[in-house]
């Protein structure tokens, strides 16, 4: 068994249409535990498509996607949903949180779906929200939080399920400079101190600068893979 958290082999995604579009083209990729990786590239290069396949949100047309040795491509829809719930944390560009729930409830939500007991939930939610610097905003609803604060709640929520890794699709795209730095600091600290694996898709140079490994996609293929 490999030591890779994420491993893709010849993964390809073609969108059928009048003119078929090959968004991802035979990508071989291995990401190890504790990595802080940025997948970069111009618009339409296939970053989000690759991330969606790694996250089990989309199925490859061909090739294989494994998370900790488990093949996602052949998993049933229901198994895939359950797998995402237990093994992958997500941070999206926007619409991350459930607007009618407080920061505490949003963070607790995933654990509730995992049937974790209340005591454990309460302890973990408090710890996570404190870690992302929102210990005093536990009872605030998303509309009462800034964009940066909302993304930090999303990070706390992503970590609540103790995932194998966190996928973040352009998490800083809608944030100002201060919020971006703050969010990156938190994620870098979680990576270094708690060994959380992060994989980003991003255009943001500030994220690229902080990443340990930068994979560049061009026309759905890996153009470069640089470890700092």
């Amino acid at each position: 068994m490999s030591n890779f958290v994420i491993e893709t082999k010849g993964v390809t995604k073609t969108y059928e249409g009048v003119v078929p579009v090959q968004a991802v083209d035979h990508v071989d990729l291995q990401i190890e535990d504790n990595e802080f990786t940025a997948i970069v590239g111009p618009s339409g290069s296939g970053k989000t498509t690759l991330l969606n396949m790694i996250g089990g949100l989309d199925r490859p047309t061909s090739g294989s996607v494994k998370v900790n040795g488990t093949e996602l491509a052949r998993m049933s829809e229901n198994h895939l949903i359950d797998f995402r719930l237990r093994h992958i944390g997500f941070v999206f560009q926007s619409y991350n949180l459930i607007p009618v729930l407080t920061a505490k409830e949003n963070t607790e939500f995933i654990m509730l779906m995992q049937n974790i007991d209340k005591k454990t939930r309460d302890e973990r939610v408090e710890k996570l929200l404190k870690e992302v610097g929102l210990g005093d905003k536990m009872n605030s609803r998303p509309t009462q939080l800034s964009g940066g604060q909302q993304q930090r709640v999303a990070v706390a929520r992503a970590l609540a399920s103790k995932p194998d890794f966190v996928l973040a699709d352009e998490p800083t795209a809608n944030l100002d400079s201060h919020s971006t730095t703050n969010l990156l600091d938190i994620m870098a600290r979680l990576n270094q101190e708690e060994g959380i694996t992060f994989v980003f898709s991003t255009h943001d140079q500030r994220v690229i600068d902080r990443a340990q490994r930068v994979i560049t996609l061009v026309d759905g293929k890996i153009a470069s893979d640089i470890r700092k």
Partner: protein
Amino acid sequence: MITKIAWRNIWRNRVRSLVVIVALALGLWAGTFTTGFYQGMINQRIDDVIASEMSHFQVHDTNFRDEMQIQYFIENALDIQNEISQKEHIVASSGRVVANSMMGSANKNGAIKFNGVDAEEENAVTGLSEKLVEGAYFEGVKRNPILVSAKMAEEYKLKLRSKVVVTIQDLNGDITSASFRVVGIYKSGNGMLDATNAYARRSDIQKLIGMQPSDLHEIAFLLDNHDLAEPMANEFQDQYTELEVLPWMDLATGMRYMVEAGNTFAIVIVAIILIALLFSVINTMLMAVMERTREIGMLMAVGLNRNKIFIMIMLETLFLSLIGGPLGLLVAFSFIEYYGANGFDLGAMGETYGELGFAAVVYTELDPSAYLTITIMVLVMALLASIYPAIKALRLNPSEAIRKI
């Protein structure tokens, strides 16, 4: 948590949710109140038919009702009347001689239904004396007193002590006539009944047509319970096979149909309203789902399975329906109780309804079972309304939904 999210979701757009809730409440109020109004009207008509016209059941010769000829009488009818009157639940009975006749005054000649009654018996069954608006109940003259309706009095220009001549065919087939003097004028509130019915003493008509005092055309029986009318009529029909024994709903034209149709009518009215509301709720919930495409996609992405998404959308629809539904039923209940106690005056339309035999003031009422039926219909509507938006939400692909702008 899913329940909490669903509950809070319906209050995200308060105005839209309140519009749906109010629409549901108004629709159900209207449907339920109309049902209560109709049921009250029918029940009053039934009470009136029983109290003023048909009693609970009647006994006739088998040909009498079809032919309306005086030769189709019941022989020794008083014995039968006495025998049936001994039975349990019989409150009163009235033996009648009934003849289609011509009545003439100085101003008009016209056809009437001439009822020969025993004053005391008839009063016990139909409360005829209480309906007098002028004069006395078969009192004031010794020979041939007659009671006419206020409507007849107006048409024939009759007053108390006016003389009328009644022309009738006797049992030998000969035409005979006699003069009667008006001693009382009644008003039953039922225009159709008042248009044709005049009352005289039974013995006077029997003498006029040559009928034995023990023979009658019609025996009407009043019971202590409406529901026993049909079973008891059937029981006596089995006992007196040579006679016709019919309950009120088969005696009064259209009454059985009206009662049966009344129940269906109520269901149909509420169903039509609920179907209209169904589409309104579906529309609202579809809007809510479409607006939240990305959010639902995000929930699926982070691991909320399709069953839970389905349940969440269904719960939102159910909550909307279960606030609006009971609210409408509660308001309808208040209205039905209020107008049940105080009556709903039909105003100018009351006279027209009166002509058709219906009361001008309707006392609304609704069986508890009808509330239960409507509640079940609301629940079914809510479930139906929730299915399509929930299915629509399930069809979302999380990766596409998240990207959607």
